[in-house]
Each structure stands twice: as C-alpha cells, then as structure tokens.
C-alpha cells in the first residue's frame, strides 16, 4: 500500500526547500538539518515503494504502480494529470537517487565550511555565506529528480527536468557572487563560475528545445503524453508509424531522435558535452550530485523511460537507436581521449562521466537495456564516491591541480582507500561494481556484433564494441594517471602537502558508505546471480512484453570477462609505466606532453569550445566561439541593414505621409468642418425652437407616456372591431 504515497516522495525535500527559503535562511545548522531530515523521509518512503515493487517482481513491468489522480488541466477530450508511474527500473532509481543524495547532503554539511588563514595566521573554520541557500537548492534539486523518476507523464517529467536545469544553473554559479570576495574566493573563480553557469544553462537549453519539440509532436500525433497510454503497442505506435514531414522518416523516428536530442543536452553527449567540464566550477558536492549521480542520469533515464518507442522504431526499420549507439560510442572514446590530458582532478572525473554516459547510451542503442540500466545505477554510486573523494582532496589541499599534489596517500588514508575503490570500479577491475556493469555492456556488444545473426545493425554494433573497448583502455589509463599523480610519488607542492589533512568524519563516513555500495552492489547482477536482470529484464517493458534476454553465463562470457579485465589492467600498467614508475617531479611537465601536437589537441579539447561554444579562461574571462562570433557578426550586419536601409525607406514614407496629411488638414478644417458647423447651427436653431417641449413637469411627461398607452389602446380597439 506504500505505493499510494509515491507522490509524497518529492514533497519532503520540496517542503525542506520551502521551509529553508521562507523561514530558516538565517540559521545555517537548522537549514542543513531540515534538508537532511527531508531527504531521509523521502528515502524512507522511497525504500518502502522500492521494497513493495521488489515484492511484485518482474510482473511490475507490465502492470506498473500507476495512478494520475491530480487533474491539472483538460485539453480536448483528455486531461493532463499529475501522478506516479513506477516500473522496475523506476523503483531501482527510487532506491539509488535518495541514497546517493543523502550521502551527498551529509558530506556537504562539513564541505561547505571553508577553512582559511586569516591575517594573524590562525586557521579559521567558517560557513559559506550562502550555506542555507546551498541546502535549499540541493533540496529542490533532489525533489525534482525524485519527481522526475516517478512522473506519470512526459509533461510532468519535463517540468521536473526543467526545474533541475534551473537548479544546476544556480548551483554551478553558486560562487559567482561578488560578496564572496572577502571569503577568499578570487575574482577569476567568480568569473569562471558565472561563465560556467550561463554556459551550462544555454547549452542544455539546445537539447531541451529539441526535447520540447519532440514532446509537442508526440502530443500532436498521439494525443497523449501519459506513459501508460503512450506504451500501448496496438494503438499509439501504429499512429506513430505514419510518415512525418521529413522524407524517409516516420513520426516515430523523428520524435525518438528529438527526444534523444534532449538526452544529448542533459547527459552531455557529443556535440553538446562542452558544458559539463566547465560545470566543475560549482562546489564539489554539486558536481557529485548534479554531474555524476542524478541530473545527467536524468538524460539516460529519459531514454530508458521512452525505450519502447526506440525499440518499436528499430523493429519497424527506423534508425533512431543506431544513432543513439553511434553517438554514445563516439562520445565514450572521444571524452576519454580528452580526459587523458586534463590536469584538474575534477575535470578528469567530468570527462570520465561523459565517457561513461556514452557507454550507457551505446548499450541502450544496441538494445542492451539491462546492461545500460545497470551501468547507470552502478556508475551513480562510484562516480559520486569519486567526486566526493576528490572533493575531500581539494578541501584539504586547497587546489584542483593534480600537478601540485602527489604522495597524498600518507596524509589521508581513508580518502585514498575509498578513492581507489571508486577508481577500480571506474576502470572495471574485478570485483568492483564497474567491472560487472561494464563487462556486461562489452559482452552484449561482442555477442551481438561478432557472434549473433547478421543484421543491418551488425556493422554499427561492431564499431560500437571497438570504440567501447578502446574507451575502456583509455579509462584505465587516465584513471591510473589520476591516481598516480594525486596519491603517489613525492609531493610536488610542499605547502599544499603540509596543509593536507584527513577529512572530518561527516565527510569520510559518506565516502565509506558509498565505497561499501561500490564494492558489493555489483554482485546484484553478477552473471552467476543475475537478480537485477531477472527483476528488470524478465518482464520486458510496458508495451514491450517480450523479456530482455538473460545473458548466458557461457564460454563467451568468460572470454569477455577476461578480455575486459585484461584491457583495464593493461591500461593501468601503461599508466604505471608512464606516471608511477618514474613519478613526475615538481615543475616537470607532464610526460604525456612529449606527444606534441596530439597532446595539444587533447589539452585544448579539440578546440570545440573555440569552434561553437564558449571558452572560459582561467582568469574568468569568457571567449566566444567562432560560430557564435559569426552569428554575432551576421546579426550586426542585419542590424545595420535594418537601421540604414529599411528605416530610411520608412522615414521616406513618413515624410511623404506628412505632406499629404497637411493637405488633408486644410481640406478638413475648411470644407468638412464647414459642413459640420453648418449642420450644427441649423440643428441648434431647430432645437431652440423644439426645446419648449421640455416643460420640466414630471406629470406632463407621464401624461405623454399615458397618451402613448392610450394610442396603443386605440389601435387595439380598432383592430378588434374590424
């Protein structure tokens, strides 16, 4: 029966947001507590729903917890309703999102206290000046993510999606306030934060407009946005198969691609990935919350939610899924290459996030629904762990630059161990979470591309597999580089090293919890257990009754497992050879730089920012990309044309009109007015004569009225007598 309270899950964080903003803004501790209590209550309720749906088992996929009791507004014959829709993957999201969020909230309590040295040389712990705001924002953010997970219709989904977009904007630019100068955040950082938040907002907007277009088309074609009505294979999908205005494309393909456009923006896929690395300007918990665990997951979750559309599309000859796979695979390898050349500890993680999201999309694109979903969940845990651990490092060292770190494992062992667990999971080392999920994706691609029946998609899937394999190697490589640069070798910046210390318990306890999850949760879908596959895959999806195939634990699985483990360890060994065997000394350039032009390309991220985005420089200035500058020039040209040529024509017309009006004015004053005045004076004469009728005597008027009645009486009499 807990499912009937599903709609209350987002209410608690939302309430926390409202209370903090309206009432307790001035009390930092209380605000933090309210936010944490809100997320705990949401977590309890979510876990109830999760357990209840676990009890339902795979049947839940065809008969999800669904109700849309709140009528928002009617349109046509239908109504737009608010409600909930919980199917197996949704319930797992309900488990993942509040758990990770709770960890991040607890972590933030200490993280948002900055330590700095004042003039007297004392270490001072001080709350961030907008400490309460921070908790309000992340509460709203969490509420919206939960609302998105339980949405019963695409419109509700979109509302939550957009509010999340706003929250990410507010949180990325959290430090973009002038007043923060006295709190030892330099001007460059303020400028960078401001630029990054605007950039994130604008770039994701591109994807959101595509999604909105897709939604509108979907509503136009099918007449509904409600998931239960949409995933009715007999009715709506047939409508969707009609030809769209674009040649050679059905409505289904068009809409699926537009929706995928929303995912590209939100989940930072090529070519709209450019916002995510810059978004690292926000506080680290924000990075963990938004850019690893939840918001970018929302993009993947959108594809998962709309997956029936994609599958039906691919079954009827459309190629939307192929594009998903290609974009995903390309992004996976592309982001991984950039990640190799980054020196900012958080940016490396950001590119790894992009790369891993590409993994998920590639998996979904080749039809490996369960593997993709599983990787989504696992990735959320270990990427949150990595971000939080990196945040702990930054918090204690006071810089983001890996080249200024080194040998930190002695100073902060707990952080080191948890970071290692996360890194191993990311690389895909046995037995951590990432190993199981990544291996499964590779296995599915391998099986479908090289051992399955030949199909039009086979070439694509082979390309995907090769990309993903290379990306796996690169992932191990840059993660290894990160570990060696950060934790091993000799300290390259003695001052920072001296300053470094282990984090307080409120910061490392969440790390420990997440590390535990990262270590053991992968077993959930280990090939010899397969509980996750059973729960998610066996029931299929609503509207797609056929089960997703259970990956057989056969010879090929062993081969793939060793292959992927080999690739990962290979990448790690290469990283050791470059960075671990002979540690980088202070002031020495990155050995990778010897590759010359390739390194330059990677450091500059293929100059994509300069091409069509915004480049945010270290000093906080923002540099517009080529395409944008071109567009600016174009609009300036149009402006000139408008002012000089068109306005000139208009002015000419106006001058001509003025001359004409003067003529008319004379005509009006002399002739027309003359006629009017003549009429008026004649009327005045007549009226002066007639006005004697106005006796001012009420009874006289009444008598005339009575005479009128009398006249009627006479008419009536005459009529009745004749």
């Amino acid at each position, binding site marked *: 029966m807990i499912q009937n309270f599903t709609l209350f899950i987002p209410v608690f964080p939302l309430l926390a947001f409202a209370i903090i903003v309206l009432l307790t803004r001035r009390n930092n501790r209380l605000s933090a507590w309210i936010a944490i209590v809100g997320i705990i209550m949401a977590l309890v309720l979510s876990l109830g729903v999760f357990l209840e749906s676990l009890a339902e088992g795979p049947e839940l996929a065809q008969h999800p917890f669904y109700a849309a009791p709140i009528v928002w507004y009617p349109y046509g014959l239908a109504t737009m309703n608010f409600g909930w829709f919980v199917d197996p993957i949704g319930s797992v999201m309900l488990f993942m999102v509040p758990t990770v969020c709770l960890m991040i909230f607890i972590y933030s309590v200490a993280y948002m206290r900055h330590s700095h040295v004042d003039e007297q040389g004392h270490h001072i712990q001080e709350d961030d000046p907008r400490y309460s705001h921070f908790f309000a924002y992340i509460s709203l953010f969490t509420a919206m993510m939960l609302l998105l997970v339980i949405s019963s219709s695409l419109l509700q989904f979109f509302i939550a999606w957009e509010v999340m977009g706003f929250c990410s904007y507010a949180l990325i630019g959290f430090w973009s306030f002038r007043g923060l100068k006295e709190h030892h955040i330099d001007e460059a950082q303020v400028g960078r934060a401001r630029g990054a938040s605007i950039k994130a907002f604008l770039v994701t907007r591109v994807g959101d407009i595509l999604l909105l277009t897709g939604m509108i088309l979907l509503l136009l074609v099918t007449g509904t946005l409600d998931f239960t009505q949409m995933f009715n294979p007999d009715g709506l999908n047939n409508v969707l198969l009609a030809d769209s205005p674009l040649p050679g494309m059905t409505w289904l393909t068009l809409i699926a691609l537009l929706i995928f456009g929303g995912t590209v923006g939100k989940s930072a896929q090529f070519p709209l990935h450019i916002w995510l690395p810059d978004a690292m300007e926000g506080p680290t918990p924000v990075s963990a919350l938004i850019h690893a665990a939840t918001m970018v997951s929302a993009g993947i979750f959108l594809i998962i939610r709309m997956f029936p559309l994609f599958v039906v599309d691919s079954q009827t000859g459309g190629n939307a899924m192929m594009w998903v796979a290609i974009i995903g695979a390309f992004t996976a390898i592309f982001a991984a290459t950039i990640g190799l050349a980054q020196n900012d500890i958080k940016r490396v993680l950001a590119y790894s996030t992009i790369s891993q999201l590409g993994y998920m999309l590639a998996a979904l694109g080749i039809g490996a629904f369960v593997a993709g979903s599983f990787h989504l969940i696992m990735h959320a845990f270990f990427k949150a762990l990595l971000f939080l651990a990196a945040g702990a490092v930054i918090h204690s060292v006071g810089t983001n630059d890996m080249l200024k770190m080194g040998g930190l494992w002695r100073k902060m062992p707990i952080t080191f161990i948890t970071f290692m667990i996360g890194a191993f999971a990311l690389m895909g080392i046995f037995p951590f979470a990432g190993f199981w999920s990544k291996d499964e994706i590779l296995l599915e691609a391998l099986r479908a591309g090289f051992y399955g029946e030949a199909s039009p998609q086979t070439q694509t899937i082979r390309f995907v597999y090769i990309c993903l394999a290379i990306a796996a190697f690169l992932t191990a490589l840059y993660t290894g580089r990160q570990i060696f640069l950060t934790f091993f070798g000799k300290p390259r910046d003695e001052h920072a090293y001296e300053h470094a210390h282990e984090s307080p318990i409120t910061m490392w306890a969440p790390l420990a919890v997440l590390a535990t999850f990262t270590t053991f949760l992968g077993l959930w879908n280990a090939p010899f257990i397969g509980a996750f596959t059973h729960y998610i895959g066996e029931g299929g999806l609503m509207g797609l009754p056929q089960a997703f195939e259970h990956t057989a634990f056969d010879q090929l699985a062993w081969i793939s497992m060793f292959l992927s483990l080999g690739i990962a360890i290979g990448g790690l060994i290469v990283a050791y050879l470059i960075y671990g065997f002979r540690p980088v000394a202070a002031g020495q350039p990155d050995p990778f730089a010897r590759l010359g032009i390739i390194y330059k390309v990677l450091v500059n991220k293929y100059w994509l920012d300069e091409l069509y985005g915004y480049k945010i420089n270290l000093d906080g200035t923002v540099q517009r990309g080529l395409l944008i500058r071109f567009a600016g020039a174009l609009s300036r040209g149009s402006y000139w044309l408008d002012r000089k040529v068109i306005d000139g024509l208009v002015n000419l017309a106006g001058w001509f009109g003025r001359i004409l009006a003067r003529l008319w004015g004379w005509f009006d004053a002399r002739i027309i007015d003359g006629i009017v005045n003549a009429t008026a004076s004649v009327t005045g004469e007549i009226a002066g004569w007639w006005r*004697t009728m*106005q006796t*001012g005597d009420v*009874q006289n008027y009444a008598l005339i009225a009575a005479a009128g009645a009398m006249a009627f009486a006479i008419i009536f009499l005459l009529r009745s007598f004749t």
Partner: protein
Amino acid sequence: MINDIPLVYYLSLSAALFCVGLFGALARRNAIAVLMGIELMLNAVNINFVAFWRYGSVNPILNQAGIVFALFVITVAAAEAAVGLALVISIYRSRDTVNVEEIDLLKW
C-alpha cells in the same frame, strides 16, 4: 366563493383602480397626492397578481409566485413611499412648496 365570482370581475376592478390611480398621478397638483395615486396603481397591480395566482396557476398551493410578487411589490412600495416622502419633505423645506407644477428645475 371562487366559483361564484369570475376572474373578469377582479381584472375589471383592478383596471379601474389602476386608471383612477393613474389619473391621480397625472392630474393632482400636490406631490403627496401624486404619490397616493402611485400607491393606488401598485395596489391595482397587486390585485392582478393575486387574482392570476388564484385563478391562473395549476397548483396555487405549491406555486405561490403571485403572492410572492405581491409581497415584493408591497415591500418596494414601502421603500418607494419612504424615499418619495423624504424627497417631498426635503423639497418642501428648501422650496416651501409641494406643488408639482412649481418643481420644474429641469425646464428649458
């Protein structure tokens, strides 16, 4: 009783009363007398309402619209008398007359 007196009697009486009242309203010189004529007219109308209620409605018990109307007319007549007489007294105080023919400020 009802059987023995036709509706036409009441209607004729009402018409006569109305005309007498109208004459009073049109021909009297005293403003108060004019008001009295108006009251007569209202009474005539009320007789019509009640007569039609009694003779005209299918179920005089459940459908008492005629009586209700007459009640409202009486109420409005009371209001009208109060305001009208207040006006007359006010005019009398300011102009020292209640002769309608002398109250003609609206004259051309």
